[in-house]
């Protein structure tokens, strides 16, 4: 199977509470919190699409969209 290609980090800013769990555990340090304490993909091209941020997010606020997702 081909390696999944990142389309977007889909972030729901209204649901994100800035807990920092995704930022802390991202194996590639892709994510950061902005001045409003909302997550954003600071180093987007480093993302390996492991989905760990999405799986751990307590607020269902981040989703990794890949090309395969259509």
């Amino acid at each position, binding site marked *: 199977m081909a390696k999944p290609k990142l389309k977007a980090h889909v972030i729901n800013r*209204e*649901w994100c*509470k*800035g*807990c*920092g*769990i995704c*930022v*802390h*555990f991202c194996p590639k340090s892709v994510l950061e919190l902005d001045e409003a304490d909302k997550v954003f993909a600071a180093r987007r091209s480093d993302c390996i699409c492991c989905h*760990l941020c999405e*799986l*751990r*997010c*307590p*607020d*269902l*606020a981040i989703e990794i969209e890949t090309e395969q997702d259509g």
Partner: protein
Amino acid sequence: MAIKDYIRERFFPHIWCPGCGHGTVLNSLLRTVSQLGMSRNEIVMVSGIGCSSRISGYVDFHTLHTLHGRALAFATGVKLSRPELNLIVPMGDGDALAIGGNHFIHAARRNIDLTAIVMNNRIYGMTGGQYSPLSGHGTLATTAPYTNIDYAFDTVELATAAGASFVARSTTYHVQQLAKILKQAILHEGFSVVEVLTQCPTYFGRKNRLGSAADMMEDYKNNTTPIGSKAKKENPDLIERGVFVQKEIPEYCSEYDKIIERAMKGK
């Protein structure tokens, strides 16, 4: 279905504090149900009272938000009248094992086909950080300002001794394992107990100076180990994760059906 199709979006963002592990339990559960391809109509979630119990408001299944400690009693009633439905009963550690302790052991003893999820944050979150039967010796709580002298139950040992036919433990750090265990628990026919170590950064974390939610999850990573690992032999203080019990024994509703059949024959 996508996980968003299983929630009541109108109630989001949810009421849980930033970094509360209860949201991650919800996340894992939604993925499990989605992977199993279950329909919203075949699941009944029954909860009691507590931060954890608020979970039933967010899922778009059949839901019952009942009384503190009594979720298993209500769930037993639902299951006996509609045995074809899948019952999921998430509970806080106080809910499940303090006020609800008796319901818990007897549901286990009967082996009724329910999936009980004990969301163990070692504290009463909703009411402001009182110690629970899972806080453990030496911990701090609003009701134990000079440290708690009570020892904790071990949920896994308790459930096993009471007769549960599926018993497992995972954490909010180990989300892949958690989803896998939840899947097995839902598919298991009989009383399933899944203990999930879930952080309450607001009360347990702050009182016990455990740092941020992510720090508390680091502790789950560092202080737990797969069942029977070499690490456990070297360090007995590590908490084991995985499936402890999985056995096929007669399930309560099927046994009850046999009784009805016998009674109908007049014998």
